[in-house]
């Protein structure tokens, strides 16, 4: 039997898990405001990874809203010290069911891990449920990697994410908690990222965003261990 002290720790973690899963709002992506059809962002990521050591890189995104329903998104990831370079394309359909905003998306991601001579192609379909303070993402991902002449496609893996914020999504600043097994440029299996993010809107066009992300190795009974810690800071610009 676990000691009472251990149980208290377990209870706090489970409570944290439940509150992040059930009291959330998404601030990482941006829905159409009816006016600005184009959105571009650039960010810098710094951190430390146990395999590659200190890491620094940039990510770039462009998103185009055709209307309130349809959007497409393209991105590039340039991780210089990791020697990891990736590009992705994503299409998204937004609709409402009662008071829920729903986002169905399909994404294709290519990563080249130069240091490990590995090509990785990921395909993902997801649906995101969004309310004012929280959102939950569920999906499936297929991951294929090739090293030399050998390739392997992992069996479909569940993609899940949850995010909660202090303020409603309409607010001009926000701080949130995230909990997920993916990031902008990778999908994991059962390794759960968690961290803190924020944004601040300067005006209707400019917005600053940032994220502190802890990416552990292992999870559940494997006792998650230090793998990567990163900080991200970026700017978003929107125009008509």
């Amino acid at each position, binding site marked *: 039997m676990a000691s009472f002290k251990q149980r208290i720790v377990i209870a706090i973690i489970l409570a944290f898990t439940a509150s992040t899963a059930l009291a959330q709002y998404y601030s990482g992506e941006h829905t159409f405001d009816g006016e600005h059809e184009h959105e571009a962002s650039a960010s810098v990521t710094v951190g430390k990874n*146990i395999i590659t050591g200190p890491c620094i890189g940039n990510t770039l995104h462009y998103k185009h809203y055709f209307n309130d329903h349809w959007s497409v998104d393209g991105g590039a990831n340039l991780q210089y010290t990791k020697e990891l370079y990736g590009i992705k394309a994503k299409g998204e359909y937004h609709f409402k069911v009662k008071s829920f905003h729903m986002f169905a998306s399909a994404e294709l991601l290519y990563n080249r891990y130069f240091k*490990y001579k590995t090509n990785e192609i990921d395909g993902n379909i997801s649906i995101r449920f969004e309310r004012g303070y929280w959102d939950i993402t569920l999906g499936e991902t297929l991951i294929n990697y090739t090293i030399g002449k050998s390739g392997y496609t992992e069996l479909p893996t569940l993609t899940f994410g949850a995010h909660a914020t202090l303020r409603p999504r309409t607010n001009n600043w926000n701080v949130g908690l995230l909990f997920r097994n993916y990031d902008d440029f990778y999908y994991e299996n059962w390794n759960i990222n968690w961290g803190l993010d924020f944004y601040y809107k300067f005006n209707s066009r400019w917005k600053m965003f940032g994220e502190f992300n802890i990416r552990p190795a*292992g999870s559940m009974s*494997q*006792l998650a261990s230090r793998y990567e810690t990163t900080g991200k800071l970026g700017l978003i610009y929107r125009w008509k």
Partner: protein
Amino acid sequence: MKKSILYSLMATALLAGCGLFSSCEKVSPQGVLMANTSVDDRVRQSLIYYTYYGEDLDWILADSIDEYSFLVGSDSHVTFDPGRLAEMVQTGIENDDLFYCHLGDLADTKPEYYYNTKAALYDATRTWKHKYIKALIDEHHTADDGMFYDQRIEKFTKNYLRPWDDWNLPFYPVVGNHDITHNGWSLFCDQFKTSFYEFTVKVGEKYDRFIFLDSANGTLGDFQIDAIENKALENDDKPIRNTFTFTHTNIFRPSMNEFASTYCREELYYLLNKLSEWGTSIAFWGHVHAWDDRMFNGVRHITMPSMNFKDHPNGGDDLLVRITVKKDGTCEMERVGLHSKEMSKDELEAMGYYTTTK
């Protein structure tokens, strides 16, 4: 909004209640987000042991022996009945396998379970010593009819060979995630000392290399990776014929019924490259309790089924693997069965095993 808050509070209370009042014997829910045992600490400790005793692990085959075999098993999850683990070693002794490798999750983490594991391996050690050390001694010395068997060996070994107590069962485990929960590393290392090590088998002028990696946390950790890159293991410069690697956490997922790999992306690709760089003949993986056999980038990857009573109450014909390394260095694989039945509480108590936990 009020409903959302209410649902959140209800779910929080439910989950918190589960956490407070569940026994959590096997899984550490704390471990979802942060470990309470560190692979770096285990590897530091292991390297100290390896530095002093690493050479003692090496084997040199006599010129008259041109092939040998070893046995591999995984996930015995010993609780009260260590019978399957004992049967594995007994099978190896009967077949004259040179040594026995285990891919982790030896026992579920409780002192009583580790006592049972230790007791079973102690009995196996005695069987092994009586078969092999006696043969070694009989080969060189005439028996002294006036002495008891054990005393006779002790006298001979003290005078001419290593002390009787210095001969250890050639049982080489790696640490699994169930070996480290609830501070289980202290129980594991008390008996097996190290989680990161290697040894060689010298056959003629060539060596076969056996590398044991600690992946119980789903990662090798930066200290172990640095140790590998800095060649802390000592056999990089020998003329290697075959390399075999053993670790707990799997890379390949046998089916949708099992968990996928929990190595993060860069580490997964690092590991696959490193195995190829080592010229690995066979990489053995455990953890998911299911069989998988595939070639990837020149390396044969074998993911092993479990051997425990819970998964296989009636045993099976394919729970272990025997690898026979031939004179020319080629390897033959054979699936080996375990068929013992779980003993009753009375039988276990009669053998001196714990049958309850505190």
